[in-house]
């Protein structure tokens, strides 16, 4: 089984993310980078699929040279091959990204055969466009289902599961297939020291991306309004009880 997982280098969560003065980029001075949470699960899923069914997993990203870090992270978890589509800009629009990735996949498949399953994260953690996976599937003429929280491989097809408002939707889809994976499908592992050392030895293939810009343009980035919270000490021990009741009544919890 051949599995491809596509990831994106994004700022690590946890810290306040600042925007440069011109509003055109994220200030990366103090930022660490990671892959989007949905994609971390997609990488874990790719590794598990290969562990269960044999074959080989490949990780691919379109991004700056530094995205090598995210490819090697995937490699440290057990992904065997890595492909970088290097760009000089901070990011490409979804249409252009999808076209470039589809082109690269065709190139990779021409050389080594088709991928049975191509995994994307449901959406990226930074721009959240929900587009690239769908556009790649469309360009390759393959079926895609997003929001996937379970994958079982059958004979020539996969059973993919996703949560719906009223219950669970189950799809049976013939391979080759594209799936948009959602956080919660698994619990991603951490790399081991040996994994880290192995990842250092993985050769990262480079495919030069080529695609025309799409219709979506970034105008400016705006800092989200800071959520402020004020802590008020209502008191300590039993004396605080009356004040707590007042607050609960104010909130409508108690009447």
């Amino acid at each position, binding site marked *: 089984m051949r599995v491809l997982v596509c990831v994106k280098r994004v700022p*690590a969560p*946890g810290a306040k993310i*600042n925007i440069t003065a011109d509003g055109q980029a994220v200030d990366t001075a103090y930022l660490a980078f990671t892959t989007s949470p949905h994609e971390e699960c997609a990488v874990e899923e790719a590794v598990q699929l290969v562990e269960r069914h044999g074959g080989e997993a490949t990780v691919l990203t379109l991004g700056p040279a530094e995205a090598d870090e995210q490819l090697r992270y995937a490699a440290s978890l057990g992904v065997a091959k890595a492909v970088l589509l290097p760009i000089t800009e901070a990011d490409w629009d979804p249409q252009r990204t999808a076209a470039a990735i589809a082109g690269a996949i065709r190139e990779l498949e021409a050389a080594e055969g088709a991928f049975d399953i191509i995994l994307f994260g449901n959406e990226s953690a930074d721009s959240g466009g929900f587009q690239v996976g769908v556009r790649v599937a469309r360009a390759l003429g393959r079926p895609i289902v997003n929001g996937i929280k379970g994958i079982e491989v059958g004979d020539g097809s996969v059973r993919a599961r996703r949560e719906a408002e009223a219950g669970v939707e189950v799809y049976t889809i013939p391979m080759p297939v594209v799936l948009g994976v959602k956080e919660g499908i698994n619990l991603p*592992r*951490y790399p*081991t*020291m040996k994994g880290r050392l192995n990842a250092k030895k993985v050769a990262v293939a480079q495919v030069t991306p080529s695609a025309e810009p799409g219709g979506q343009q970034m105008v400016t980035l705006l800092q989200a309004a800071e959520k402020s919270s004020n*802590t008020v*000490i209502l008191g300590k021990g039993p004396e605080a009880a009356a004040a707590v009741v007042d607050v609960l009544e104010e909130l409508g919890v108690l009447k």
Partner: protein
Amino acid sequence: MSEQTAATRDVPSTAKVVVIGAGIVGNCLVGHLSRLGWTDMVLLDKGPLPNPGGSTGHASNFIFPTDHNKEMAFLTVDSQNQYIDHGLNNTCGGIEVAREPQRLEEFKRRMTSAKAWNIDARLVTPAEIKEMVPFINEEILLGGYYTPSVSVVDSLATGTRMREEAVAAGNLSVFANTEVLSLETELLPSGFPKVTAVVTDRGRIEAEHVVIACGVWSPRIAAMAGANIPLTPAVHQMADVGPIDVLVESNKELAYPIIRDMDTFCYERQSAGSMEVGSYAHRPILMRPDDIPSNQASALTPTELPLTYDDFEPQMEQAIELMEMLGDAEIKYAINGLLSLTPDANPVLGETVEVRNLWSAAAVWIKEGPGIAQLVAEWMTYGYPHMCDPHGSDISRFYPHEKTEWHINARCNEHFNKTYGIVHPREQWASQRGMRRSPFYAREEALGATFFDARGWERPQWYSSNEKLQAKFPEAFTPRTHEWDARWWNPVTNAEHLQMRESVGMVDLTAFNEFDFEGPGACAFLDYVCVNKVDVAVGRSVYTPLLTPHGGFRGDLTIQRLGEHHFRVITGAFDGGRDNYWFNKHLEQWNADHADAQATFTDRSQGICTVGVWGPNAAKTLAKVTTDHTTAPYDLSQEGFPYGAVQDVLIDGVPCTMFRISYVGENGWEIYTRMEHGLKVWDAIWDAGQEFEIIPVGIGVYAVTGRIEKGYRLMGAELESEYTPVEAGLARPKVKAAALIGKAAYRKARDEGPAAIMCTLSMDSQQCADGYDRFPTGGNEPILTLSGDRIVDAKGRVSRVTTAGAGPSVGKYLLLAYLPPEHAVEGTKLQVMYMNELYPVTVERAGATPLFDPTDARMKS
């Protein structure tokens, strides 16, 4: 008063002391200050409590107590005891393991230091290591150094306890999430600024004292007041890997000893089900305090940066080699943790030299945090610490060139990888050399000088040109068999010594500091600071200790009276910074209190060079070139120019000041002149001395062999604040009438008599078990009884070697050490431990009487 929690509370408008930084140091400091009676204190931190985000929060928290350095060993053990008192010390034992043969030698040295400081330790075989740590690969190990008392402490909880103790006592208000915006100062009449207020984002606090305990941020806060705390934030890489079955199954936080893999500069420390792997092997990664992210901009905390794997990977391979199970464990947490490094790897403590009442308590590790907090609290309370001499950590030790970012980074880049290194007591720096050179430098270089660094000064330690003396003094050139004993040493020193004693030698002493005191109050002020009477005749000199308020040594120097109201202090390179600060600090108060007896201080060091000329032919040599202000020969006789006299002369027409004194036990002079005249004076003396076979003499003679034969004490070695002039044998028959710092304590010490006496010992045999001679370096080797017991005096101080060196003229290898009175008896047989072996020694002298030329006849004839 209470812990601050409400986001809106304002800070008080005044406080006795504001401590900035609630890490291990700031927290313990407010606790100790509270215990010492301080009230009305404020503790600030820009981060949240209990972990505001500094280095304390991510520390690995373990304590290996053995240290070769007395000050740091004391503070580490004292800190460990404080953690024990809090019930927050988890003893697990620790093993330093060796992969390389030279590390086994270092372990013998550690055994020796452990004996000195009374730390239980033993050498273990690979099999014994395996028994204690079943998952270790003992096949790559040569042996280990096991310390059962190694522990992991809870530094956050200890800090919280100490902080809460001060709060509960009503002495402290705490403000977390409070950022310091600026420090305000006012200019004193002395010209020094004094800190007056701390401005925060919650308001302004007027404060009498401000303490910077901000770890990696300390330089940035100090700079707000124009002060300098020379340290740099630096990365220490650490990863937490697990879960690991064998650790999980132990069901304990710490079931196995901590392993320090010394030759790969790594450690492995159990943390419940996982293992912390830390490294000091990666390239030095230094940062600027201003480049550390804010709490808001940090994913974890500001001092837990993302691990840079490229730097860590070689250490992962070595860790897996040592413990294979680590390879398959998941890396759950990995950081480039920030800690503080200083140019000489020691802490930076005390009042800043630039700003009065602004204190530094920085560059401190968890292992010594509580002890150092107590030390600084004592310093603030008593004017000097009582618990131990802070010599090596004193912030005033630095000269201006040592406080630049360039210098800090150069030295930290050099010593970072020596964190687990094997560092020789005489080891020299490779970086930042050639910073300060005397006018004689070119001549010395041409004579084959090997230069040692003395706080930036390049001082000749020995001269290869003197190898020509081999034919004359063949026995002096006996090599040392063991490489460790011979490292940073050369036998030519012995020949220089003998030739000086036989004829005459020249010693470059330009590294001296010269401080001038002038004005109507100069004499009275110096009398107040110095033990011995300074009010001597013009043209005479005084050798005197300076005391701490509790009567220990604070300084040791000579003073020349150049005029009725003009005195010149001469002090050494290693204490110049500390003495400069001490004098200025007290002069400021003196001038404030004595409107009718003002004095001024001028540092003349940068303009004056010095050469010492000593030996039986020193007077004959100098007589050839020395005149009065005309061309008349100068009277250099003992009658015309007695010992201790200071006189102005011309040497080859150059104005010089000659001072008849000696630190090597020979007749001769220290000759001072202006820097620009130096070379001419050197050449004139050199030429005049040729008929006497004059030689250049290195500091190896001046500071070690010549000095130790005469039993002369050295500040920082024999002379420390834990000891009194009575014990050092430097007390004069009477105490002068004038008031002086430490007088009451000095009187008390005289009345009580010494609890220990400075002694000169000789080694009866230097032969080691392998059949060749060893040469102790003078690195705190313990003096033991014949039954091998440590010798501890009535004040709890251990007897240990303070200086060791050859005595070429007495034909013995000599040691200086304090001994309790019952052992300080000439002829007493004892032992010294060196590299974990015992050698017989004899007490040669108890007290200040020299072994060589006991009546000082040579210096006065």
